[in-house]
């Protein structure tokens, strides 16, 4: 316990410098902004900003990027409640009851509920992160290359199982991502692989280019496909504070949402989106006001909003302790760490304690900022909703183009980004999600290296992956997860968990 306090003290020491506070504020403000603006998600934004953060100290860069992710969860709920337009996928379920509340004149109450739930969940999740990360990292220090390889297999498989959509296509996209990760010079032999004799590909594809193309450009084309005129009808905000009776109604849903969200956030493939969906369906089943759901139940706002924020924060646990991304945002964070010269994994906590605890402490500070940003300043964000997409997407393109160019100062990356934009659009039309591909792309080179080392140690015996107990357990879990999806009963629940989206 004393150690925990000492660690947190170090964290707050790091986070409480003026520079880092400013980057934290910038991150959460940007996060809220993109959360409010529909059609611009955290993955594209973080990819756009990565080149800018290269010059910052690692702590400041990570604090800002993290702020964007959880800030987006706050902002997304604002638009969901006020105009029935979820700014983020994780706020889709919030719109169901939040917008109904707004229409009945309780917009202020819904917004306050979302903010209180999110803040509570954020505080608890930050604490969980501080408590559970060190033992997990200690445990992970025992891992050899075989364990890491199996862990990555498990992570990739689990991300597919917990996501929605076709299982086969998701696995296909993972393998495609892994294969793309092979491009560039092989670190062991120095042999250029899949470079097509282009010197620009000698270092492989930059993951920023890939992410901006698939998530930035691909998304823009997808959005322009069914462009619609947005109604600028914004519900009036009044009566911000919930009454005592309201507090009684939302206390239990917030607790349940926080717990469920925190749990689902840790799982690979989890994170904010799954957490929100699951929390809403659970609440709908067990709430005494179940009949009111969909008609403006305050519980229907409290539970998913707590869950998505808790999930957004606990998804940092596997990233910070194991170096394994559980969703595309975490994949970008790992990329950011690598660019900063920090090898992600359990060593981060012991080698860079200030970085590790600084990020954790900054999350709690960021959550505090968000409450301030979101409740009193709500009018400002509301006005931003009225920015039409036709003015927004050229701006996104400008940032993508300059950002990509500035990584290596060459035009080649811009063309490559356009190519991935086309690819991303085509794959989207074929129901192949780009997220698993990005995970595979980041993990590809690491998996090859761990496999190589594992086989070297075992003298070429591949059974090393199933004779070492931890490694075998993880592979077994991966197989079980795969079979679960194929079992009809589970498949039904999996589809049900995402049904509210339609």
């Amino acid at each position, binding site marked *: 316990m004393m150690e925990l306090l000492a660690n947190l003290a170090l964290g707050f020491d790091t986070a409480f410098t003026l520079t880092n506070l400013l980057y934290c504020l910038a991150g959460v403000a940007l996060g809220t902004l993109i959360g409010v603006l529909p059609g611009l998600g955290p993955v594209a934004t973080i990819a756009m900003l990565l080149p800018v953060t290269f010059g910052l100290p690692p702590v400041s860069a990570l604090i800002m990027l993290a702020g964007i992710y959880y800030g987006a969860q706050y902002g997304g709920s604002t638009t969901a409640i006020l105009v029935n337009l979820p700014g983020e996928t994780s706020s889709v379920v919030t719109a169901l009851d939040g917008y109904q509340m707004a229409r009945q004149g309780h917009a202020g109450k819904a917004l306050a509920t979302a903010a209180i739930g999110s803040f509570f969940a954020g505080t608890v999740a930050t604490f969980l992160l501080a408590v559970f990360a060190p033992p997990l990292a200690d445990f992970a220090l025992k891992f050899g290359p075989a364990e890491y390889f199996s862990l990555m297999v498990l992570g990739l498989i689990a991300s597919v199982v917990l996501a929605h959509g076709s299982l086969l296509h998701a696995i296909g996209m993972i393998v495609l991502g892994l294969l793309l990760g092979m491009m560039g010079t*092989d670190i062991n032999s120095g042999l250029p*692989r*899949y470079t097509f004799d282009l010197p620009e590909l000698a270092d492989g594809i930059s993951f920023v280019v890939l992410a901006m193309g698939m998530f930035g*450009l691909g998304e823009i084309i997808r959005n322009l496909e069914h462009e619609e005129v947005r109604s600028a009808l914004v519900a009036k905000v009044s009566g911000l504070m919930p009454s005592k009776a309201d507090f009684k109604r939302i206390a239990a849903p917030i607790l349940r949402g926080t717990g469920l969200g925190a749990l689902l956030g840790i799982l690979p493939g989890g994170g904010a989106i799954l957490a929100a969906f699951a929390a809403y369906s659970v609440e709908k089943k067990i709430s005494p006001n179940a009949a009111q759901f969909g008609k403006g139940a305050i519980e229907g706002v409290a539970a998913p909003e707590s869950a998505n924020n808790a999930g957004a924060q606990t998804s940092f646990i596997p990233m910070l302790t194991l170096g394994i991304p559980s969703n595309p945002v975490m994949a970008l964070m790992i990329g950011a760490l690598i660019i900063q010269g920090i090898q992600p994994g359990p060593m981060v906590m012991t080698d860079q304690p200030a970085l590790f605890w600084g990020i954790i402490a900054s999350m709690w500070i960021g959550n505090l900022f968000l409450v301030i940003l979101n409740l009193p300043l709500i009018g400002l964000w509301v006005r931003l909703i009225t920015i039409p997409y036709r003015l927004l997407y050229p701006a996104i393109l400008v940032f993508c183009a300059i950002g990509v160019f*500035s990584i290596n100062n060459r*035009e080649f990356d811009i063309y490559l980004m356009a190519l991935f934009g086309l690819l991303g659009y085509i794959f989207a039309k*074929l129901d192949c999600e780009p997220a698993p591909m990005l995970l595979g792309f980041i993990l590809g080179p690491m998996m090859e290296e761990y496999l190589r080392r594992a*086989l070297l140690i075992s003298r070429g015996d591949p059974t090393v992956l199933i004779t070492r107990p931890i490694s075998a357990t993880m592979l077994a879990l991966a197989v079980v997860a795969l079979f679960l999806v194929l079992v009809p009963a589970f498949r039904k629940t999996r589809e049900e968990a995402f049904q509210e989206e339609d």
Partner: protein
Amino acid sequence: MAVIRNPKDFWAGLIYLGIGLGAFHLAQDYEMGTAVRMGPGYFPKVLASLLGLIGLIALVRSFLRPGEAIGRLAWRPAFLVLGATVLFGLLVRGAGLALSLFVLVLVSAYASRQFRWRPTLLLALGLTVFSVLVFLKGLGIPLPLLGSWFVR
């Protein structure tokens, strides 16, 4: 094409299979190595085979299990958005950042069905000024304001 019951599966499968085969073919030039000392061709070949296999499964499935049709491809926005991006790359050194940004915004904005000249021109101007101030002056990205075509 009535035999294909799931066009999405069919085309995705074809792409996977094509990339898988291509990647495997290219990897033949890379040394396979042994299991003890994995060569640079080892992992790529395993992955390429896996991708080809997944493609085959998707192809076979597309004839067996019915699925939705692929929606219409939005060629116009795709062409304009991607074209504007490529155009930016082609212009940026020759014409300079200011002009190429202006073109990027103008061409890409034309992809919207609600395109109007006045707001777009204002947007292009605003974004150009903003980017020049922030990226060129502020962050010092090594790009000319006016390109080599204008300044000798």
